[in-house]
């Protein structure tokens, strides 16, 4: 997924943050996306972890700068440090743990209030592999192969079902909530890899083209130019909202 086609496509960075209750599988999702790997016993994230991964779209290359945060409640006060300037967020819950969706809603609310305006949020129910799709109706597994069409339209065609073994949160419940709030919605398994790549490509597609235009030229050391571009864009929006206006406007291209 990270290949670079021969023609030098424009490339841009997207800052993405993962939020969600402890042990829902945030780090595992990232590990699956970045290394296509899965570890049964992943250490809890302390503070946050940082990884990058590129994804190739027809028109451009998106480089995700992924901030994977710690999930325990008391780490919540650190989160603003990480979602600051983020253009996208993955709010993850565990399909087998009802409390995790409540926490996810809290995160969504916080992002909508405190993060950069226009942040693209995806709601992701993880550990789909634990929800048996025993009965023939290709329910949960079949839901949402997000084709990720233009403009970040709601992907996912999740049928409401509840026949999963350990499933505690129905697709319908989460999906209707996501629709209400205008979130992308997926059900994934970091363990099997189901839908993981789709989440990220859907996000890549959903990032408004406009917020990518300051992207760096093909390859090379323009990282920081891109970054500062992103920061500045976020700034403009923020200033408009008279929100935390004093953020970094002094990004220089040294």
């Amino acid at each position, binding site marked *: 997924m990270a290949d670079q086609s021969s023609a030098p496509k424009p490339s841009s960075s997207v800052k993405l943050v993962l939020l969600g209750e402890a042990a829902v599988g945030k780090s595992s999702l990232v590990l699956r996306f970045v290394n296509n790997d899965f570890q049964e016993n992943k250490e*809890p994230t*302390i503070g946050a972890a940082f990884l990058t991964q590129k994804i190739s779209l027809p028109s451009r290359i998106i480089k995700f700068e992924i901030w994977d945060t710690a999930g*325990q409640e*008391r*780490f919540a006060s*650190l989160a603003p440090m990480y979602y600051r300037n983020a253009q996208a967020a993955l709010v993850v819950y565990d399909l087998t743990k009802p409390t995790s969706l409540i926490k996810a809603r*809290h995160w969504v609310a916080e992002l909508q*209030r405190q993060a950069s305006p226009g942040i693209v949020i995806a709601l992701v129910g993880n550990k789909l592999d634990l929800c048996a799709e025993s009965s023939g109706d290709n329910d949960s597994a079949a839901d949402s192969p997000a084709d990720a069409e233009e403009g970040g339209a709601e992907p996912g065609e999740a049928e409401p079902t509840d026949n999963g073994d350990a499933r505690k949160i129905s697709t319908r419940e989460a999906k209707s909530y996501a629709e209400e709030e205008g979130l992308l919605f997926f059900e994934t398994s970091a363990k099997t890899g189901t839908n993981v790549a789709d989440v990220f490509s859907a996000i890549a597609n959903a990032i408004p083209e406009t917020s990518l235009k300051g992207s760096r030229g093909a390859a090379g050391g323009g*990282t920081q130019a891109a970054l500062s571009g992103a920061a500045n864009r976020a700034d403009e929006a923020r200033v408009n909202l008279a929100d935390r206006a004093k953020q970094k406007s002094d*990004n220089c291209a040294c």
Partner: protein
Amino acid sequence: MLSSLVQKFIDQSPLSSNNDHRPSKAALFRDQFRLPAGQHPLHEITAELFLPLPSSAAAGPLTSGEKSRDSGNRYVGDLHLSEHFLCFSTIRTSFLPGASHTASIAFTGPTQGAGPGGNGFTLPLCSIRRVERLNSHHDKFSLALTTFESLQKALTDKTKASLPFPRKLVLTLDGSRLACERFCDGLKRGLREGMKEVDSLRTVVSQCFSEYLLDPARLKAREEGTKPPDPPDTGLGILFRYPGDARKLRDKSKIRLWGEYMRENGRNATIVRQPTFHKLIRVGLPNRLRGEIWEICSGSFYTRLRNPNLYEKTLAKFTGQESLAIDEIEKDLNRSLPEYPGFQSEEGIGRLRRVLTAYSWTNEEVGYCQAMNIVVAALLIYMSESQAFFTLGALCDRLLPGYYSKDMYGTLLDQRVFENLVERTMPVLWEHLVKSDVNLSVVSLPWFLSLYINSMPLVFAFRVLDVFFLEGPKVLFQVGLAILRINGEELLDVHDDGSFISVLKNYFSRLDESAHPHSENEKLRAITKFQELMVTAFKEFAGITHASIEELRAKHIDNVKAGLATFAKRTSIRNLGPESKKLSADDLSAIYDRFFSVLAERQKRAKLREEERRRQEQQKTRPGLWTHHSDRNHDEPARNIAPLQTMDYDAFREFLANTAKWALTDSPTSVSKDLSKPVTSQRNRSHTLLQWGSGPQPADHDFMQRLYGKWDESHQGEMTLQQLVRGLARIKGTTDIMNSMSLFFELFDDDNTGKVDREGILRMSESLLFLSRRGFDGTITPSDFGNGMISPVSAADAKDGLQMSTNEKFLGSVSAFIRRCFEYADPDEVVESTSSKLQAATINEPAEEEDLLDLTETKSVSKQPASPKPAEHDPLSEVTPPGTAVKPTPILEGSRRSSSRAASHNLALDPSKPLHITLPTFRMVILADELLEQFFESFFPQSFHLSDSPNSSTVSLPSSTLSGNLTTFSNLGTPVKNLINGASNKTVIDVGRAGGVVEPGSRGLRGVLDNIVNDGMRMAAEMRKRMEETQREFERNAREQGHSRPYRDEEDDDDDDDDEKGAELGRRDQELLEGAEVASIKTEGSRSRAVSSATTETGTGPKKGEGGGGGGRDLG
């Protein structure tokens, strides 16, 4: 002795320690020597420590120090005595109370409780076996201490020919004769106490590897090839291998060196720190001794010594119990150092689970925080469970304060401090980071939080830990700064978080490589990057001291805490649920603040009370000076209590008292009603004051209980902020009279049947009176108020007159309310009335009015004819609010034909005919009365004052209303003003005898008001009484007349009151019981000038007023 006692009181007094962030001297003293809780600097004196060289071993190159003519090492320093410890350090420290109080620097020296740096010892008194007074210098006090292991060795080593002379520590005190003698006295006493702890010492010491290492039996067994004694538990490492290559780590020679050192300088409890001690730690501890040295350096050893079985006891005490912390721990058990084989086994996981769980029980404030799993996992590689448990305690309480607590303030604080240090020491790099918008703490936070354990390879992280336990938190900063310094060049080329992180990741993975791979110099080439790191950290950043860290912490802490508080509040308010949206942001903010300030205040007061109680208990049981500060309460480390998050009923009352003025008590000086805290008579007063602090004292009324019962949805006595907000949002969120009425109704619908019975109706009326007894703040205005205004008297009089009429009218309204409720009530057995449901209300029917009068007459046992007044004013006939009849609601459920009504009214008081009203009936009755309508339309919701209060800690009375509105109940101004002025204690009393202290001018008015309120209360009470009498009467008659006649004729009912005498006795009892209830809502019984006859009247409020002849009454 005396001075130390004084100091102790200063330490314990909440005033001295909590006023600022500065720790008390005792705390600094404990930190300096890593002592457990409960130790105080009782005595201190300058002294010289002389350590004679052991006769056998020549002074090796290891042991340096100032060699003296007597062949031994001499150190000058301060000698301290606490309850259970004798401590010596060459770092000059003074904790004497004589020194200045104002600047902490002045009495702590530059150390600020830095930990056991320098040379010296921390000897538990129980480990001192003998103290001899040496007389070599006649004008000096010289003491020779013999410690535990020396004696033991002497005993067990008898067979050995070359018996080493028992080690002696010679202390020469340097002070006035008096000072020296005092010190020795204290020491003597302490030693005596220490005797009691020798068993504990034996237990604890036997679990130390050093004991095994030096055990002659082991050495002998090895020589003779017999089975050596079992070694103590030295962690998972012994089962699953210690990390790293033992050969490469030169573990064997390190063990040997430590063995030598401890033979000369004591071990575990009795070890004396000489320069070699520090060096041996810097080069890295050997695997099997690592846990023990960590334990001694961190001081967890001494905590364990004080309570050797706490770990096992804690586990046993809480077996089978569940908690949030346990859930969180379970999630992480398989995620803690998963690469280490020990944590892939049940054995390791089990140990980790037990230690984390046990700790979560002892420290609720921390519970469990991610990263603790990693730290404890690391500890468990080298330590037994019990050792790890106590060491975790030392980490959370002393070494990493606030790192793992619920808000993690310590973590954030130290990040701030670290950034500050980077800025100071590496300004260029700092500037670059700022420019590139790289967030330093993104990288450094995990370093601190998990002590580098999952940042560096384990072997190196443990090396950092070795020094950290000895020298304290500053080590984390020094290492962090060194990392940045060493990688500085590379970091300056990096322009974003990602590359920043990867540079460091790469560095950590190569710590074992040569720092100078290309150097010609072989020696230089042999230096690893890790060694370079350590040298940089401790040489180049030697200036980073505990004191400088503390200074920076003090600088930032307020900011950090404020930031956290804002964040917590914002988050909490955001997550209060959809209903909270009905309230304004200001209101929510006010509720949040008030909720938590009430809880915090209560918790603080409870703690003070508890301390007071304990102090008294101690004084009672142990009057002696020394025993006064004995260990009892320190045996179990005080459990850190988490801040309260939910309100019990009393807290709720306190909240209400800060929110609505009807929730203020009328009798604040009375003995505390709080049954849970019985007070001893002698401390009565202060306890009562403490009970509510300096804030307003809340009332206790049925209505408040109902409110609490309704809002506390779990019915566990744990009302959450969310529940409280939901409750308030329902009342204040929609200013809709229908809503407000149904909320009120629901409070009395105990079993959620949609019905309120006879009892409930009376309760309702009592609540109406309770709520209104402090006036209406102008929210209620009778329609004829204009008349009052134009009366030819002074403005004040006019106002008074108006007041009276409003309140009198309200009283009338309430009594009419009761009447009507009974009138329109449905019988409980609705067998035949099914057909008549949903019939439109016929409230304007004249027949009804007659019924009303009828009712009055039948009900009212006084033979007085009902006054025509209420009938005239009766809104039922005159001012029926528009819309009442129009409302599509089935207003009069089960309405009856007027002909049958009279009969049913007569049943109103007949308890054998249970009745109830429904919500529609209730609404109708309310809407039928102008004042009650206004009551629910405006007064009731508005009586809860949220954000508009001028001062959230006082009664919220909108000042604008108070001053600007003539119709305000201004006579309340006096006590309220006092409250706002903050004359707390006085105010409480003022409110208590409100009538007694109001200004002369308003006296008459108050009296009248009180009368009205009292009348109302009495009326309600009387109603209840009567009902119960009827019930009793009925029962008695039933008994008298055998079982043949269960029901009496209605005529007999009429005679009930004439019959009173007969029921006198039972009634007295009943009154007594009721009295208790009613008393709580009465304003002031003694001043009530109501005529006694009034009490027998029901539903004729205004009439009654005439009878009472209250001076200022002005009936329209």
